């Protein structure tokens, strides 16, 4: 697993995702609504990677923040006439941060299965609240009629998803910059340290618990923003943004891509969502069989996720070429 790297400069291959995204915008204009969805999930996966991959916090409740963000933006847009997209994002971020810090402060003293269950309980409780408060959230019918004003007063969310795609891409780029900056800082190093050896971090005097709460809150905030983006793209919020299912899906996507490496969060959702989209169209009744097989295969043969595999090949390749060079001499 990669973690703390001292050289913070952006390497050329790191530009690849952005080139692909921009190319997709021009080459696949009919797939932009799927594209926007993928981008939102990448941001959501990034936020999970921050706590799972770097700080080692295992959670099944990350959808609590995603959903809270989605509903915050949705309720503002549908019930209170706050239609400015940036205001909605800001409010969603604040709400998610608040929930993150308050729950994080309580549950982060626990570990493993207990932590898993606590996070699951939290998202389930938020789900029940959203279901019960149907005058505000629309309950199980979902919250429809979410108004989102054109971005900067200029760009309206269109049927083809062009605006949505660019908007999400920009948001993802900013999120990525922020996380990248964070991980290449001493703070990022400390997180990796906590993941690898908590006792030692205590021993060197690091404030482990508070660092965890801080990163958890940050991650929650990002997840909240991702949720709000989804609301704005769809102009609709349903209960399915909360609970076990979206959390589980997200976990699967991230692990598929590769945990603890920034770009695993990019690869996972792309592969998962596109595979799901494709398989669901071919075999609507049995597509999850394919997803299941994919998961088992990844676990048995590619522990580091897809990117882990790529790494292995790359290393094998470079080893071979360097030994070839050596023998040629």
């Amino acid at each position, binding site marked *: 697993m990669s973690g703390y790297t001292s050289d913070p400069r952006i390497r050329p291959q790191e530009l690849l995702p952005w080139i692909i995204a921009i190319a997709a915008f021009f080459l696949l204009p009919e797939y932009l609504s799927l594209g926007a969805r993928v981008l939102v999930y990448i941001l959501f996966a990034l936020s999970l990677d921050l706590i799972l991959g770097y700080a080692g916090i295992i959670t099944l409740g990350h959808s609590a923040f995603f959903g809270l963000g989605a509903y915050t933006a949705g309720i503002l847009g549908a019930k209170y006439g706050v239609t400015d997209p940036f205001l909605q994002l800001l409010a969603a971020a604040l709400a998610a941060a608040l929930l993150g810090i308050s729950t994080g402060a309580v549950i982060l003293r626990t570990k493993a*299965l207990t932590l898993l269950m606590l996070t699951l309980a939290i998202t389930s409780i938020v789900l029940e609240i959203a279901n019960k408060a149907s005058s505000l959230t629309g309950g199980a019918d979902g919250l429809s009629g979410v108004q989102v004003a054109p971005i900067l007063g200029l760009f309206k969310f269109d049927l083809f998803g062009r605006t949505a795609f660019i908007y999400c891409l920009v948001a993802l780029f900013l999120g990525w910059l922020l996380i990248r900056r964070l991980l290449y800082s001493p703070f990022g190093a400390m997180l990796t340290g906590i993941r690898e050896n908590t006792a030692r971090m205590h021993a060197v005097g690091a404030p482990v618990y508070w660092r965890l709460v801080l990163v958890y809150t940050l991650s929650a905030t990002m997840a909240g923003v991702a949720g709000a983006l989804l609301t704005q793209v769809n102009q609709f919020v349903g209960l399915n943004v909360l609970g076990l299912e979206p959390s589980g899906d997200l976990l699967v996507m991230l692990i598929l891509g590769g945990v603890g490496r920034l770009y695993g969060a990019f690869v996972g959702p792309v592969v998962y969502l596109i595979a799901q989209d494709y398989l669901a169209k071919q075999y609507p009744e049995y597509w999850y069989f394919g997803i299941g097989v994919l998961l088992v295969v990844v676990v048995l043969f590619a522990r580091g996720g897809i990117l882990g595999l790529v790494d292995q090949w790359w290393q094998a390749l470079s080893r071979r070429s360097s030994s070839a060079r050596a023998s040629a001499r």
Partner: protein
Amino acid sequence: MILYVISVGLSVTMGLMGFINLAHGVFAMAGGFILSTAMARFGLPFPLAVLVAFVVVSAGSIVLERLLYSRLYAAGELAQVLFSIGLILISMALARLVYGNLAAPVFLPDYLRGQVHILGRDFPTYRVFLIMFSALLIAALWFGVERTRWGAMVRAAVDNRAMAQSVGINTRQLFMATFALGSGLAGLGGALGADILPVQWSYPFEHLVYFLIVVAVGGLGSLRGPFVAALLIGVADTACKYWIPEFGAFLIYVATMAILLWRPMGLFGVRA
């Protein structure tokens, strides 16, 4: 209550063996389907069909253990979680292919239906039977783990596998047998409870949360734990739904949170 019989199997695999097996419900579902098939197609009486479910699921799980699970004992929690989710998805698709969309029909024998009168109140016979059966099971298991040579070997192997192996315990076989027992118990639970928790292809996913809660609240590696937890949560849940139905869905999660914050290792958890 039936959740307990299923969860106790999970407690065996997850607690004793330290494997996070989210796919536990798969074995329970298999048990239910086998019961239904045995009764409907081969006309077996209910008790015999339950036994068949237990045996077949155990046997089947050995195959899975050898082929797949055993490769992951040393892997991290994440890999185990992901792997078992994959297994859930595969089994759900297969179950749907074989048994179709509807729940498998299960009809109880007449002696388990109706009600019994205890202390002037009516209780459904079936539920009373389940509780008594579970209590017997727990006693037997507790005896097995705490008082027999097998139990001692399992505990030794989990605590320190290399050491156990070096003193001559065949940990490979031991884990295989333990896993079969855990899965078999799940199959037994799924079969016994098929009348309350209808067996359908979506079963492993639907009840996942309940199994996990029971095990987490009860505490890993404890046999008493899940039993007490299932009883406690079952009673509290029922009482809450009876008295304040408006909050029926909240209670189970709030209670889980409260207990886990109070005792992070679960009620009877062994310190990791």
